[in-house]
């Protein structure tokens, strides 16, 4: 009996010796994120007990011995699981080592060591490439710290947001002197400059005004002796307007000249010469073609050799002493190129142009070559002497509705004013690069009646039938492409 009791108590004694052994493992996992100065670290505490550690976190050092560690303390923790820590004091382009730690019953236990490589900051691109002051520009870079600074030349820009240390949203500072400043970033002591300059959108429109309120349309225009002429169109669906309006930019004044000849509805005009079109208008573009061709000489029209074909909605351009008439809207003549010799007052046999063309294509002449922008935005250069043509660029804007205009200012050309578009662009003809200019402030639902340049300014006459038009049916604007 005594022996049985002894065994019983012994069993109780043994069972009383059982206790929970609080053990755990510590793991440093692959880091979530490492940039130039920031790292997101991951550790895991593995245990089958709900143990409590006094402190846990990460050590980060520049050497494996962790002689001078950065300690990321996450404090007390109860129970196993994954934990995250973040360090923001790294230097770019350096090697670091990290290990997780946990302080348990006064003893610090470490996990495995992981190597970190902090990254160098960099820049990729900015968008848009041209914008107004005060607007937002987005800069794409990498590993850009929150202390990053952005400069437009020397003007510091305000950073509105930094997303994932990569996307900067920057407010464009006011223009100082340069309208094409360099964009410079300074991040973590690294200075980075974009190779391509930013372009401020500049250009100033001023409303000049037109004396009449009627709606002129289907007219022609030309320049001569520094003056601008427009007219010989319609002022309603059937009402012919038998006048030329003359604008003298020196005097800033409009005057009229009555025309005795038949009208040239949808005709052409170029450097004092005009003609073609239709002599009266039925519905739409139907009518009787007017073959007359004139030279405007001291406000008197002088008749020249009749046109060799019905030039309605044709493109006219002059190179040296030759006037060219290209295409039009009359079937069978849409791809013909005729040449008029001013000295001989005669038309030559036509050449065939590779495709059909009419005056909805924006065109201009520069250095004895015709440039035009196709409806597919291709910028062509064409030599009418040799027939050679080449695509040398693409128009970056919206030309989907056609009927834009262009005007040469020195070695630049101002292109735009397309139907239902307010975009205005400048093409540098030396390096074929485009710049966006200030948007057209007038009624964008309008027709271009004529454009010409004088003293580095562009003059544009438009008509609109919009009832809400602030300026009536006729709008005459002056555009200074370099003013801001």
């Amino acid at each position, binding site marked *: 009996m005594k022996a049985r009791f002894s065994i019983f108590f012994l069993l109780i004694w043994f069972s009383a010796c059982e206790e929970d052994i609080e053990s755990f493992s510590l793991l440093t996992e692959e880091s979530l*994120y490492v940039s130039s100065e920031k790292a997101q670290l991951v550790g895991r505490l593995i245990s089958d007990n709900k143990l409590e550690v006094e402190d846990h976190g990460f050590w980060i050092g520049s050497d494996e011995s962790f002689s001078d560690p950065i300690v990321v303390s996450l404090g007390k923790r109860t129970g196993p699981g*994954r934990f995250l820590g973040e360090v923001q004091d790294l230097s770019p382009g350096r090697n670091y080592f990290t290990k997780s730690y946990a302080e348990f019953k006064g003893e610090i236990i470490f996990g495995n060591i992981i190597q970190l490589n902090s990254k160098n900051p960099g820049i990729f691109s900015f968008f848009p490439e041209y914008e107004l002051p005060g607007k937002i520009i987005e800069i794409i870079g990498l590993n850009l710290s929150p202390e990053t600074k952005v400069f437009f030349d020397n003007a510091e820009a305000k950073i509105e947001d930094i*997303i*994932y*240390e*990569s996307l900067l949203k920057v407010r464009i500072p006011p223009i100082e002197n340069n309208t094409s400043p360099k964009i410079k970033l300074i991040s973590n002591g690294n200075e980075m400059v974009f190779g391509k300059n930013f372009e401020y959108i500049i250009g100033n429109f001023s409303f000049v005004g037109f004396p009449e309120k009627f709606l002129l349309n289907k007219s022609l225009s030309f320049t001569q002796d520094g003056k601008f002429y427009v007219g010989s169109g319609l002022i309603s669906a059937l009402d012919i307007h038998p006048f030329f309006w003359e604008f003298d930019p020196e005097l800033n004044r409009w005057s009229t000249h009555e025309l005795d000849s038949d009208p040239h509805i949808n005709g052409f005009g170029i450097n004092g010469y005009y003609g073609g079109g239709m002599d009266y208008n039925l519905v739409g573009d139907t009518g009787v073609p007017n073959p007359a061709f004139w030279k405007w000489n001291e406000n008197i029209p002088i008749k020249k050799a009749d046109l060799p074909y019905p030039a309605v909605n044709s493109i006219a351009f002059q190179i040296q002493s030759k006037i060219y008439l290209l295409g039009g809207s009359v079937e069978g003549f849409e791809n013909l190129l005729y040449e008029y010799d001013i000295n001989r007052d005669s038309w030559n046999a036509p050449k065939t142009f590779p495709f059909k063309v009419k005056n909805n294509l924006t065109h201009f002449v520069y250095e004895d070559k015709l440039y035009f922008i196709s409806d597919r935005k291709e910028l062509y250069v064409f030599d009418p002497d040799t027939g050679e043509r080449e695509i040398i660029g693409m128009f970056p804007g919206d030309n989907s509705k056609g009927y834009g205009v262009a005007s040469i200012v020195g070695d630049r050309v101002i292109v735009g004013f397309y139907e239902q578009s307010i975009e205005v662009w400048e093409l540098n003809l030396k390096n074929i690069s485009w710049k966006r200019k200030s948007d057209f402030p007038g009624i964008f639902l309008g027709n271009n009646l004529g454009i010409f340049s004088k003293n580095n300014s562009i003059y544009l006459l438009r008509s609109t039938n919009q009832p809400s038009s602030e300026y009536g049916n006729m709008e005459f604007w002056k555009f200074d492409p370099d003013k801001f």
Partner: protein
Amino acid sequence: MKKRLFFLLFLIPGCIEPYLVVAPESESMLNVEGFITDFPGPHVIKISRTATYGSVFVDFIRPVSQAIVAVRENETGLVTFLKETDQGMYETPTIFEAKIGNTYSLKITTREGIEYTSFPSKTHQAPQLDSMVYSTLVIPTENRLLPRSGLRLLAYFKDPSDEKNFYFWNVKNPIAKVETFPEFFKPRFSLPSDPYQPKECCKYCDVPDVNLFNSLYIADDSDFNGLVTNQIAGFLEDNGFRFSYKYQFEFEQMAISEETFRFLKLVNQQLTISGSVFDPPPANIRGNLVCLTHPEETVLGHFFSAGVSKTSILLNREDLDLIQIQRAFNDDCRLLNQPVPPSNVDP
């Protein structure tokens, strides 16, 4: 003595206390689906929030809209932002492609400012897919006369011997080119004797097979390391209409990481639970995404990057040994938004 026992019996039942079960309150969790490959995009990432347990009046699965979503190349720090094309659907730019050997993380910041990120996933080079072979597979059912059938896809390739490889096969952009018979159109409730009322259009259409169910086909090379092999890589079930004319899809062989393989294997196990005693128990599958704002939050899903070797397949009905009776659709094919058997069969 008997009286004492009687009182004792009273005391024993008095010790029973009701046990209150406190079920944890269900929560809506972020769910991320999608991957990137070394082929040009767009690669699609779908982000949603799970519904809490209950009827649709309690909660429903909601797409996560207006989030900032980006993929970061960890070697360089280059971040590519994704564009939301539909609610909760985010696409990389078309020019984006993962680089072999580099690791990528998915970063998400929701409209509420909560930030999530995935663990980096390495892009492995996919072994060259030599060919994809298909054969008819018949699956017996309880009804002997109506077995299921379809095309079993086999991938032929040589497994590299110098590394451990994990494979995932995917059928991408399946399109059924359907042929219908608008010339035999009859309005509903027409009598068999009524004449046809032919429609002028349309007889042939391309119908995306968006609801093609395809379970996950994965493999590791433990059984065929370094060998030329073929592996079961997909099954396209014949629903009686899908293959009735032509069927095209892209077949992708992806090289995935061991972590991704483990995740997909567990998902596949859960998908193929049939209710037998040999099934694995239902379990929460840990993904590779974490919430940086609330580290304790559970995030579902696994983002990964993979190298791909792929081929385009065009199947013609004449080349297939189809078991199912192919049903005709006597109407304009543009009425179909998915290649499912037409419900009303013309007599």
